[in-house]
């Protein structure tokens, strides 16, 4: 029987949901399980309700799914909110000092802080470490790897705190070790090659670092901030200047200044903050300054739902800014793809001298996936596409060329002067109102797309090629859609997935070829109007027969997609 169950850990913000999740998820990955956990939280620092849902399997996981098998309740509200999801043979582990009303179904395991750590008054540690230990006891996973992780996590707080954690974890383990339930991991063994537990934004940050990122500027905003934090943590080690800007307008202009001066630079935000950057996005386009921009989507309009997920900014990033200028838009489906596309974004930005978007969302940002080392490249190509040698006399930053790409020099690297301008400009970079030059220069910029589109592809297909039902999707919806397609095929409904990760310039020929043969085309996306479907129609003339849309702020599950197909599959 395949292993596939969900652990939901819930409580108020500040109670320790993350303190339990991190070491537990890592322990299970080290034990050879495939783990995927989603984070559901509110826009507040303390209180409210938040939960992490950890899916555990003996097979690779691409998606979360519905249902709860082990429910860890740090407060009464968690029981009230999630007891209906708890399977009949599920297990409830609860803080007995806080939870008084229990559901009728399933096994129940009470954690009493005073029993777990009788001589100390550290009730939160007792329950958090006790719950971690209890889960491992239930699952029949050895406790030692968790003990090492608790030392790692709390070592900085001193030996006493580590001791309390160890003691409570051991007590929780003993409490649960004798309890039999249907979710044993006793047969799992650590993999020969250790696997990674990594979130989408962490992988994206690593991809940027691998590509030679040297300058990152940004203003905090959920869910974009985790990119800023992931690089910031590693800035000293890897030689990156990270500057927290006074606002998003400053953030993008700082990055443009750094890029102009010659380093690989990145900025980013979520929808509201990116709205502030739009004028300077045009500056990147007009001045042909390479720039990588992360746009981490959350539901809008305006402040919307700050901590939830969405794919509602696709149309916005495709058209943000006045008039036409070339840009590229990439949207990853997995952390490993996020790593690769982040690295690719810098090469595209440098080669074509334009802004490149990495379009992510809260689900991609916060969800932790198990990945294999082999999912990541061993090296990444770094192509700065710069001209730094001696020049032949005068240098024109915006020389008119056949492919629209003008040789790029850097200021301070020789006698050639580099002149960049937001005004319409002559080839040597000076502002002009010569209308013939304007047309020539506008055409030159747009001509870059002709070559760029030939480099675009990024299509992932899954399922039998001849399947009449095709589910198209993009960005972070890859996992849930792929699992929905797998389940359809298992239930004898032939289906396939076509996932797009390179959305602009739109690889229309390749996409049309991938969709050829689709008798019924369904577009699956997390917005209310089918933005990618409109893009598909605009670029290929094809359009979906049916849309599966979700925009309540929670991520797709395979079950959502299957329900959305009812009557259409």
């Amino acid at each position, binding site marked *: 029987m395949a292993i596939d169950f969900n652990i939901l850990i819930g409580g108020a913000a500040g109670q320790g949901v993350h303190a339990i999740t991190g070491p537990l998820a890592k322990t299970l990955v*080290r034990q050879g399980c495939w783990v995927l956990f989603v984070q559901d939280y509110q826009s507040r620092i303390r209180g409210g309700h938040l939960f992490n849902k950890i899916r555990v399997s003996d097979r690779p996981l691409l998606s979360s799914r519905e249902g709860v098998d082990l429910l860890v309740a740090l407060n009464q509200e968690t029981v009230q909110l999630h007891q209906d999801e708890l399977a009949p043979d599920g297990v409830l582990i609860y803080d007995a000092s806080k939870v008084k009303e229990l559901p009728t179904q399933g096994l129940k395991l009470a954690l009493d802080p005073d029993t777990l750590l009788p001589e100390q008054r550290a009730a939160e540690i007792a329950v958090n470490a006790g719950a971690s230990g209890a889960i491992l006891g239930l699952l029949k996973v050895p406790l030692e790897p968790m003990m090492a992780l608790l030392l790692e996590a709390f070592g900085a707080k001193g030996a006493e705190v580590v001791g309390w954690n160890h003691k409570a974890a051991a007590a929780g383990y003993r409490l649960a070790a004798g309890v039999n339930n249907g979710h044993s991991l006793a047969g799992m063994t650590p993999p020969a090659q*250790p696997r*990674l*537990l*990594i979130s989408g934004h962490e992988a994206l940050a*690593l991809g940027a*670092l*691998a590509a*030679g990122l*040297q*300058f990152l500027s940004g203003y905090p905003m959920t869910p974009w901030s985790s990119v800023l934090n992931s690089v910031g943590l590693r*800035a*000293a080690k*890897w*030689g*990156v*200047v990270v*500057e927290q*800007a*006074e*606002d998003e*307008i*400053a*953030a993008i*202009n*700082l*990055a*443009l*200044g*750094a*890029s*102009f*001066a*010659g*380093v690989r*630079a990145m900025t980013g935000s979520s929808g509201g903050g990116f709205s502030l950057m739009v*004028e*300077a996005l045009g*500056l990147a386009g007009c*001045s042909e300054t390479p720039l990588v921009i992360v746009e981490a989507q959350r539901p809008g309009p305006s402040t919307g739902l700050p901590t939830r997920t969405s794919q509602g900014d696709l149309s916005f990033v495709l058209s943000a800014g006045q008039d036409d200028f070339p840009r590229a838009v990439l949207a990853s489906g997995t952390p490993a793809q996020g790593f690769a596309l982040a690295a690719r974004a810098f090469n595209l930005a440098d080669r074509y001298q334009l802004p490149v978007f990495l379009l992510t969302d809260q689900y991609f940002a916060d969800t932790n996936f198990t990945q294999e*080392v082999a999912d*990541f490249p*061993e*090296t*990444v190509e770094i192509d700065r596409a710069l001209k730094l040698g001696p020049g032949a006399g005068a240098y024109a930053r915006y020389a008119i060329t056949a492919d629209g790409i003008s040789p790029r020099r*850097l*200021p*301070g690297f*020789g*006698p*050639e*002067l*580099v*002149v*960049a*301008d*937001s005004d319409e400009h002559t080839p040597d*970079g*000076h*502002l002009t109102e010569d209308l013939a030059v304007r047309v020539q220069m506008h055409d030159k910029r747009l001509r870059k797309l002709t070559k760029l589109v030939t480099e675009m592809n990024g299509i992932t297909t899954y399922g039998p090629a001849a399947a009449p039902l095709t589910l198209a999707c993009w960005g972070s919806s890859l996992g849930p859609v792929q699992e929905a397609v797998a389940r359809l095929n298992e239930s004898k409904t032939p289906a396939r997935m076509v996932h797009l990760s390179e959305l602009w310039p739109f690889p229309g020929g390749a996409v049309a070829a991938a969709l050829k043969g689709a008798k019924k085309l369904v577009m699956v996306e997390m917005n209310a109007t089918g933005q990618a479907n409109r893009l598909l129609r605009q670029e290929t003339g094809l359009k979906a027969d049916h849309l599966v849309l979700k925009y309540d702020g929670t991520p797709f599950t395979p079950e959502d997609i299957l329900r959305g197909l009812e009557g259409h599959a």
Partner: protein
Amino acid sequence: MLPLELYQGIESAWCPGCGNFGILKACKQALSELEIKPEDLLMVSGIGQSSKFPHYLRCNTFNGIHGRSLPLAMGAQLANHELKVVAHAGDGDCYGEGGNHLLAALRRNPNLTLVVHNNQVYALTKGQASPTTDQGYKTLLQPEGVAYPPLHALALAVSQDCSWVGRGFAGMVEHLTGLYKQALTHKGFALLEVLQPCVTFNHVNTYPWYQARVYDVEKESGYDPENELWAYRKAKEWGERIPIGVIFKRSRPLLEEAHPVLRAGPLVRQQPERPIKELLADFF
């Protein structure tokens, strides 16, 4: 001293008699005397007549968007702190549209010079009030006169320990050249405001108006530019007498010193080596 022709830019689009010509002349003179070569200089600007300045001077240039010269300049300076970075902005550009960046620059103390061309009017958009327009000044948009007092940007700068604060007058080129030389060689954020008559739209704050009011503050008895309370009073002085010269100086740590990675030299000269195996190591 380098030949002045070295700095000859493209033909200007400024009005004949514009105060900007005096600023350009002083700037070129200072660069030539300091022997700053065009290729070692980066001029950054926003939008407005003042922001066309870098085009009229031969140098590396990034002419950005309205109000944003400072973040553009700071980004370039962080990427290559060997470049001599100078930002040119107008009163509307720097004190209005880009005000937040001025506050942040005052905190960061980047090693760059900011020259604010202050003509007390929005000239490029044909005569509306600017943040420094005097109270009561009538415009098409403010026919009853500007209701609010002007922003005392230099007093703001002094209050936030700006590393170097000075004011010049476009009608006194030699004096302004001296200020440029000091600002360009100062280690830290140097704010040089230049009173710049707008001959087309500002018929109140004219050359004679300024000439009758400006005085060399450095020749006053009690001149004390390292005393912030003295400097604050001088920075707020406006009306019958307007001080020009160096108003405030304070030594502070530089922006580039806040980033340890820059101790190894300019970022753009560094070659980052990041083996992917080592990058992934945190996630097992």
